[in-house]
């Protein structure tokens, strides 16, 4: 069939590009970790090292707190935007888009200015005589969490605006007619309709926070290593490629796991709606 041949020809360049330059290198990277000599042993000894365990738990903890923080902070904000007039909403979306498109170095540098030893926060605290010595905020887990929340806040908000806007107002009105107060309506009517968006948004942000590099590098530095900064350190600074590959595999597994969870959730919920 001629048509089939043409469509294959159209698909081939990008397909080959991705398989050759992405999938192949990644497989080459993880295969030795999974099937290499004494691979199990190395992998488990990596996991057993307290230093590594600390980093893994820190990474998970940071991502978890970031996600929770984002849920709490972004949801009302998205709600606020969703309830604006169309024009205002468009404008606000642009305002949110701007930081999203701004270089991560810039965004994190801004937080260095704020959280640093002579930064805005410390200056304020000392001027107000709340503290007499600069507080150490930069290069702590807290700084990373703050930076990540700032980084992902626009992402989370944009993910929530559309679902909130497209909520069917008449369902809410029907509930009000049947005597449900505003709070009941919010928790029993509005929130359940947004569960999918909240969950998928959270997972996306969680995975993003687990694998982000620039923020933990700039705001955590070497004193607060996470998996991604550990990967860079092991490979480029220490030259321990085996360890780096193990970290890489761990990061891939995290990303794929969150993808599958998202798929399952969206499938189950959309499937449930059809019934």
């Amino acid at each position, binding site marked *: 069939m001629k*048509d089939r041949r043409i469509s294959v020809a*159209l698909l081939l*360049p*990008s397909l080959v*590009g*991705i398989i050759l*330059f*992405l999938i*192949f*290198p*990644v497989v*080459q*990277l993880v295969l030795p970790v999974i099937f290499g000599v004494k691979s199990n042993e190395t992998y488990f000894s990596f996991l057993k090292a307290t230093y590594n365990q600390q980093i893994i738990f820190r990474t998970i903890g940071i991502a978890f707190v970031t996600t929770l923080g984002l849920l709490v902070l972004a949801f009302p*904000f998205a709600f*606020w935007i969703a309830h604006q007039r169309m024009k205002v909403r468009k404008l*606000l*979306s*642009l*305002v*949110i*888009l*701007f*930081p*999203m*498109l*701004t*270089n*991560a*170095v*810039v*965004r994190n*540098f*801004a*937080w*260095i*200015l*704020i959280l*640093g030893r*002579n930064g*805005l926060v410390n200056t304020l605290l000392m001027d107000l005589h709340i503290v007499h010595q600069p507080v150490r905020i930069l290069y702590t887990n807290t700084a990373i969490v703050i930076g990540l929340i700032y*980084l992902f*806040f626009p*992402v989370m908000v*944009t*993910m929530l605006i*559309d679902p909130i806007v497209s909520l069917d107002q008449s369902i809410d009105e029907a509930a009000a007619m049947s005597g449900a107060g505003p709070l009941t309506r919010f928790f029993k009517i509005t929130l359940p309709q947004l569960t999918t968006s909240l969950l998928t948004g959270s997972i*996306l942000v969680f995975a993003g926070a687990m*694998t*982000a*590099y*620039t923020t933990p*590098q*700039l705001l955590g530095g070497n004193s607060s290593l996470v998996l991604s900064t550990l990967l*860079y350190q092991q*490979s480029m600074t220490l030259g321990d490629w085996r360890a780096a590959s193990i970290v*890489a595999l761990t*990061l*891939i597994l*995290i*990303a794929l796991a969150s993808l599958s969870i998202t798929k399952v959730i969206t499938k189950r919920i959309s499937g449930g709606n059809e019934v």
Partner: protein
Amino acid sequence: MRQKKHWLLTLYGYLMLLLLLLPLVLVVVTSFGSQAAITFPIKGFTLKWYANILSQPDFVTGFKTSFAVAVTASFLAIVVGTPAVYALTRCGIHHANWFQTVFLSPTLIPEIVIGFALFQSLVIGIKLPLMPVLITGHFLLSVPYVIRMLTARLLLFDQTIEEASWLSGASKIKTFFRVVIPNISGTLLAIFIMCFINSFNNIPITLFLNGPSLTMLPTAILNYLQNNYDPTVSAVSVILMLLTGLMMWLMERMNGLTHVNEHLNQKGQN
């Protein structure tokens, strides 16, 4: 139309808006301070840090290289990705989902891992020079944008218009260039800009693939920050923000911004 807004929510909205923009404003403000160490409140007013950017060879060459790499990679991604999208949306391919997953796989694998993998197998493994590998990495970053944004556009583009063109005597190829392309050129430009911004700003992949002979702007700033803490970084940041603004303005003029948000959502950011 909508239910009445609570004043607390409104207050919260403005507060968060402020918190979102304040850090960036702070960067702008500090770029004008005359003291070498950044302290608050800033003192004096100067433009010397902007002048200082030009005396940092890494920033200047970094800007040029980053620009060139971003343009090349975005262009490549569009040239290679567009036919694929056309095939996926027009040729009734079996298992189109499967192809879609492959094309979007660069977003599924953490960028830092992509950088490491490319470095290990292409630079160390088969001894390719850094530059082509770097462009490859940025090309991989851009492909998902092309696939997503263009698929959305082509699905909206009425196929009977193409059929009308075929029946008017234009072959499929002619139709593609004379009817399809002119109608999606705004989207293509928006895609190009998105890919450009994303590539220009990228750090995780770039980090592994730059070197003494290959300076990229974001990593150059990162390096500079390790040894210095002066308003030069603020000044560069302002330039980068202006660049972002310019790109957004361009996209808005192309009417391409409307859908950008959705596509950004799908991707965690470094």
